[in-house]
């Protein structure tokens, strides 16, 4: 779980995010403190309820001029953190583009469209094309499970399902196999298929995927596209609202 949010903050402990003072507690990362203060820093592999991971690098910021990932970097008193400079936005956009070309993403027909954090961040950062050449990897789909299907084409290796299944569900169903550009999500079952694991649609790991890689079956397009979570408002607004509601 994230840091104890009811604990009072020490008024001495402040850093500046894009010029705004952000109070923090000892042990907070930049991300922890920023989200609590209602400031959204773009991120994909980070989830407040899980141990910081730092793999997607979308939350990259400048900390007193040096690059740092805000989800893993502890907040430091009186430092200046920049998350909205032209340079940072450009870098973040390039990282998003890398994630798009590495897999096979089909936004217009994807069930997750409008609920997808990768897509929402691409909109938020005004990404108009994938820019780099597509890798077109060949990845199979696992539709073996009665309630959930996995489309590895859309996996961005954020490892949220890995962490959820290991740390919360205590099932250890998802693992990363391979290395480098050949790293891929793997399912722990005798056949390697989801059907043969003890995965359930009620697992936290079934709900946590920020993209359309792990999707429930039998409920396609119940909410029409254009009326979904990130269709109406940018992800920064939606997520901060959500954060505030959970704090109330």
């Amino acid at each position, binding site marked *: 779980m994230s840091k104890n949010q009811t604990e009072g903050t020490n008024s001495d402990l402040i850093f500046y995010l894009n010029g705004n003072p952000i109070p923090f507690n000892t042990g907070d990362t930049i991300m922890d403190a920023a989200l609590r203060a209602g400031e959204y820093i773009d991120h994909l592999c980070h989830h407040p309820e899980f141990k910081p991971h730092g793999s997607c690098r979308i939350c990259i910021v400048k900390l007193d001029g040096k690059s740092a990932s805000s989800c893993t970097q502890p907040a430091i008193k009186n430092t200046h953190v920049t998350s909205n400079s032209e340079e940072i936005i450009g870098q973040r956009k*390039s*990282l998003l583009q890398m994630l798009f070309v590495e897999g096979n993403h089909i936004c217009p027909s994807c069930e997750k469209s409008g609920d997808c954090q990768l897509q929402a961040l691409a909109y938020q950062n005004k990404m108009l094309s994938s820019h780099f*050449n597509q890798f077109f990897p060949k990845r199979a789909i696992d539709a073996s499970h009665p309630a959930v299907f996995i489309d590895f084409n859309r996996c961005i*290796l954020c490892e949220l399902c890995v962490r959820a299944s290991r740390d919360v569900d205590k099932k250890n169903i998802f693992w990363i196999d391979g290395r*480098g*550009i050949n*790293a891929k999500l793997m399912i722990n079952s005798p056949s390697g298929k989801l059907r043969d694991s003890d995965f359930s649609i009620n697992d936290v790991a079934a709900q946590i995927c920020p993209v359309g890689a792990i999707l429930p079956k039998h409920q396609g397009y119940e909410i029409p596209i254009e009326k979904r979570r990130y269709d109406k408002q940018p992800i920064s607004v939606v997520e901060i609202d959500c954060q505030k509601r959970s704090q109330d």
Partner: protein
Amino acid sequence: MKISQFTNETIASFNHQSDMLLQILIKIQYQYSFIPQKSITQLSKKLFLTESNVLAVIGFYSFLHKEARGHYDLRVSNNITDQMLGSLELVELLCDKLAVQLATPRKDKRVTLDTTSCTGMSDQGSAMLVNGLPIVELNKKRIKTICQLIESGTPVNQWPKDFFHIKNNIQRRDILLNDRSDNSEAIRVFLKQGDKKLLKQIEFSNLRGRGGGGFKTGFKWRLCKQTIAKQRYVICNADEGEPGTFKDRVLLTTLPDKIIEGMTLCAGIINEDFTDHSVSGLIYLRGEYQYLRESLEQVLQKRRDAGLLGKDILGKKGFDFDIKIHLGAGAYICGEESALIESLEGKRGIPRNRPPFPVNEGYKNQPTVVNNVETFINAALITIHGADWFEKIGTEQSSGSKLLSISGDCAKPGIYEYPFGTSIKQILNDCGALNTQAVQVSGPAGSTIPAKDFDRCIAFEDIPTGGSFMIFNQQRNLLDMVKNFSAFFVDESCGFCTPCRVGSSLLKQLIDRVHQQSVSNYDLNEIKRISHLMRDTSHCGLGSSASNSVMDTLKYFPKLYQQQLKLTDDEPVFDLQAVLQQARQLTGNDNV
């Protein structure tokens, strides 16, 4: 022996410890040339791990396989220095003679041929590994003999001995290689002078890490000592993976006692007290050097017998310290200290987030010192001869000497030990390098030094180095080097973070296109943009330094790139045929 019996015995020999998974897998791999499914199932049951956990570890390390590799597993070193000595042609010859394709086991399961990252034999290349054992000085004649030996089914231990003869090639000695002190002296000094005084001595000597990082050794030891814990670890990083470097191989061969002495000294110094605190040692030996393991084990045993290791060292009550050797299995990233720790714990070698730093939470989350082989030797020497003696050598900011692994275009490749502050020019002169175009210092992640900078010096404040020193004369095309390095980083990226995982592949595509003269100014700018992105946003040093050689050569040798331009436009080159070829492959339809 049956697979299940061998697997069981191996698991038992490692006391059923799940953190020994990697070590167990390495043993099974060498026994069967792969990890049979039966072993995977057994391992997961006996070690209480999921099968996927075992598979994930196998999938991470280049030397572990799920498919049988056959009786002879050949890996030809493909560092640029091997290629300069003709390794590419030798690989072709092997493919031809053995009728195999790269990375695909031959149908009769007799042989698999593959390439591998630098095996640490650049001064006597081309080199290869046969069932894990290094063969050096490859030429067509040796390759032909090897093919015959394979076809006739001759066991590797009956192959000509001179194939496996590894030379030390020590060409220049200074304080470290000239030392003739007794192998227990540093420990005796420690017992006489105590931890506090000696820690100050190491700090005062200004010793900095010799692996390339240059972190102050004394400060690292102090940080570890200050962390409150009952158990501490001293780890020797002998995962010398930087292409072109081989000095640790020579130190492990010629001065193993001094390395272990340095580790023992460190254990003594960082221990809070000898009553209820303990320190244990580990040597992480790269898989390519597993042939050194036996001799190292013998040295450890000799030292135990002499009371220099084990319980109550040299009679000092409570001064207990022993060392275990762990093997790597073909992963350059494991030279990064936190990835090395993960690997020691039997996991995939993914660098950890920092903080916490290893000095606070390292191996098994206990305070840990990780130092390079050469650093431990220096620490022992400083203890024996004093900080003043050490500080006098080198420059103000870089005390002492540095071992360089010199290879490439020179008359006398090998090990050269120099005081810090020695110029590139002098080094080139000493090793008989003529008409040098550039020197690549510190491997693919290091710097390309052009001729105009040969007055610059080896020092932390000028040209820092872990020890790799590859020389390229005027006849060489430096783009071959850049291409080789870009492929190296694709192979060795761990895949954890986006910029390194994807960026290294994008960079390789662009550099390959430079090679093929299929680029425009736009593409060169793309190279720069991706390089900056990887440098700024990567999770660890591998990704952030992966573009150094392309950036350096773009800066110092712009003509090299200009002459490859197909278009000078600021538009990308569009090669219709290449795109159609891709479409043909995707659709399986040649009419596209």
